[in-house]
């Protein structure tokens, strides 16, 4: 079968699956079967976290730039789109509804809101990225954290979006939206990583100086991946705000950014499926711990943080490492690099090799 047909079939299957799952998770259920609202909530939040983790993985996992400001971009997306839906969406929807029908108008308006949110977050990413990506390592981390906190405090002081009281937002998001955009995010990041841009990004992660010496415009690529990553985070913010129907700046504190980092480190940095896996685990873990018996339930978060430490102590490279989970695992042994792809010493394309971290460590020690 030609690749195009294969891909179209795959896309069709995914879309049908998403629609079926959406029906399954709505109140009516699928053929009378449905999940309780609480589970639906957790699943949707997991989907949003998948978007966040996969997008952060682009800048942190593949480009090797350590950002702790993801919650800030999420907030930018959430609040700009909410401003749009709260103040303008109703008028536009009713006038557009006359022309193309109410439900389509509803979807179009939300699509517009998502685009606006993503664009605003991308712009924020550009503004933050250009100056801060000159910095390295921990300094970059702390500056991104600082920007995210400043964004949060600025939003806190804008009365039009609720300020400290919080902001009521109409509900647009359902599972179909979150699922589709999670898939879109994964496809975007997958395609970037497997393109020449992806090669450039990975080379920056492996050794920035060497990459620059090879003629890669490192600043340009770093800013590019930062902007894309921010735009996707903004999208996640839009979906989040229109699902919970209430925005408070407390949702975007730096602990949120930490949570996203935890997801990608837990899943394995530089692994797409790892990020997806980590996002799901980190969303589900605290919820599952609610089931702890009796008196233990108040220690839910204690157990959660203890588990986090234990995972890091026992599996420091993350659950998947840089490997990808999929059918190819079965035939990984005889796999060979294709075409002119750059090959590392283990005979696998560089993008799939171990993260640079261990190498970095020893090098750092030498330089010190």
């Amino acid at each position, binding site marked *: 079968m030609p690749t195009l047909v294969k891909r179209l079939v795959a896309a069709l299957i995914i879309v049908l699956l998403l629609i079926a799952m959406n029906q399954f998770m709505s109140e009516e259920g699928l053929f009378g079967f449905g999940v309780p609202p609480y589970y639906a909530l957790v699943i949707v939040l997991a989907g949003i976290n998948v978007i966040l983790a996969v997008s952060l993985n682009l800048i942190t996992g593949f480009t090797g730039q*350590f950002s702790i400001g993801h919650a800030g971009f999420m907030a930018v997306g959430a609040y700009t789109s909410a401003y749009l839906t709260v103040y303008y969406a109703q008028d536009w929807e009713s006038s557009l509804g006359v022309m193309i029908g109410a439900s389509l108008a509803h979807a179009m308006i939300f699509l517009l809101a998502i685009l606006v949110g993503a664009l605003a977050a991308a712009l924020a990413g550009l503004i933050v990225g250009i100056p801060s990506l000159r910095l390295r390592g*921990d300094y970059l981390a702390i500056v991104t954290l600082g920007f995210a906190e400043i964004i949060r405090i600025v939003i806190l*002081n804008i009365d039009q979006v609720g300020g400290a009281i919080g902001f009521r937002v109409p509900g647009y998001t359902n599972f179909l939206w979150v699922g589709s955009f999670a898939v879109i995010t994964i496809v975007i990041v997958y395609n970037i990583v497997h393109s020449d841009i992806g090669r450039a990004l990975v080379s920056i992660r492996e050794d920035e100086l060497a990459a620059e010496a090879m003629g890669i415009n490192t600043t340009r690529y770093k800013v590019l991946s930062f902007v894309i990553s921010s735009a996707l985070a903004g999208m996640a913010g839009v979906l989040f705000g229109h699902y919970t129907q209430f925005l408070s700046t407390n949702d975007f504190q730096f602990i949120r950014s930490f949570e996203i980092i935890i997801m990608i480190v837990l899943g394995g940095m530089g692994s797409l499926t790892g990020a997806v896996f980590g996002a799901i685990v980190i969303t589900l873990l605290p919820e599952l711990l609610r089931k702890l018996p009796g008196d233990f339930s108040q220690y839910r*978060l204690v157990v959660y*943080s203890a588990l986090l*430490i234990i995972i890091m102590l026992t599996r420091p490279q993350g659950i998947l490492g840089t490997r990808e989970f999929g059918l190819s695992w079965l035939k990984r042994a005889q796999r060979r690099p294709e075409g002119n792809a750059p090959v590392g010493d283990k005979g696998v394309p560089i993008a799939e090799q171990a993260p640079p971290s*261990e190498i970095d460590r020893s090098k750092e020690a030498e330089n010190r």
Partner: protein
Amino acid sequence: MDTFIQQLINGLTVGAIYALIALGYTMVYGILRLINFAHGDIYMVGAFVGYFLAYQLGFAAGPSLLGLTVVLLGSMIISALVGMAIERFAYRPIRKYARMTTLITAIGVSLLIENLFVARLGAAPRAFPQLLREESYTLFGNAAISKSQILIFIVSIALMLLLQWIIFKTKVGTAMRAVSFNLNSAKLMGINTDVIISVTFALGSALAAAAGVLTAQYNPQIDPLMGIITGLKAFVAAVLGGIGNVPGAVLGGLLIGIAETFVVGYGQNIGVPSTFRDAVAFAILILVLLFRPTGLLGSTVQEKV
């Protein structure tokens, strides 16, 4: 002018607290290149240890200099042990792994301490017993300085001088500097690096605990999450001064303390609401790092290919 001096005094008070905590961040970073996110929580632990010591030993009944000394020293010692335990059980096993792993572990430890305290003690703030008779003295006309502020200045200056002495005049300090210069070479020179790292954590934690008890005297409300924002700002202070640099941490702490107080005091005059207090530390940090990427007093490291 009076209010200016008043703001300056208040700013220096807050700044001295940030500086004490920032010292711990900077020392640990200097040696391990680890952002010890649990350090802000040690400051909280210090305040709570002080709280329980005061009640258990019966010093909570009334102000006494003896009580204050015992509570302060006791809290510093116990928190130092807590810091050493964290290093031993959480950080040492993963020291050789990637930066990101150690960082996540540090965040995990921080969450663990916070959640443990919330689960055991509840999140509601508690009133710290008064160990010092609160009096104010006026200076320069209308500016007032309270006894607890004087206490903060005296104790923090004394602790900083002590730290300076330990680092530059003792054998342990020499070893600490050697380890921070190059861990592997220090090991080859016969320095027991594990012990030195332990000592570093102990010193940093003791300073943070002192900051906790002193803050609790100045502003007698303690809660299990008080270390998050304060710790973060202290970390910013350490980076601002040049992380790994001891005088830099003090300078950064004082600068941020003063800037924050001034934003609250004078911000309205230039249209900056006092809610921007928490943002100003980050704004200063970003501005400074854009022009001096390694902080105010940090040394630039030449990158080798």
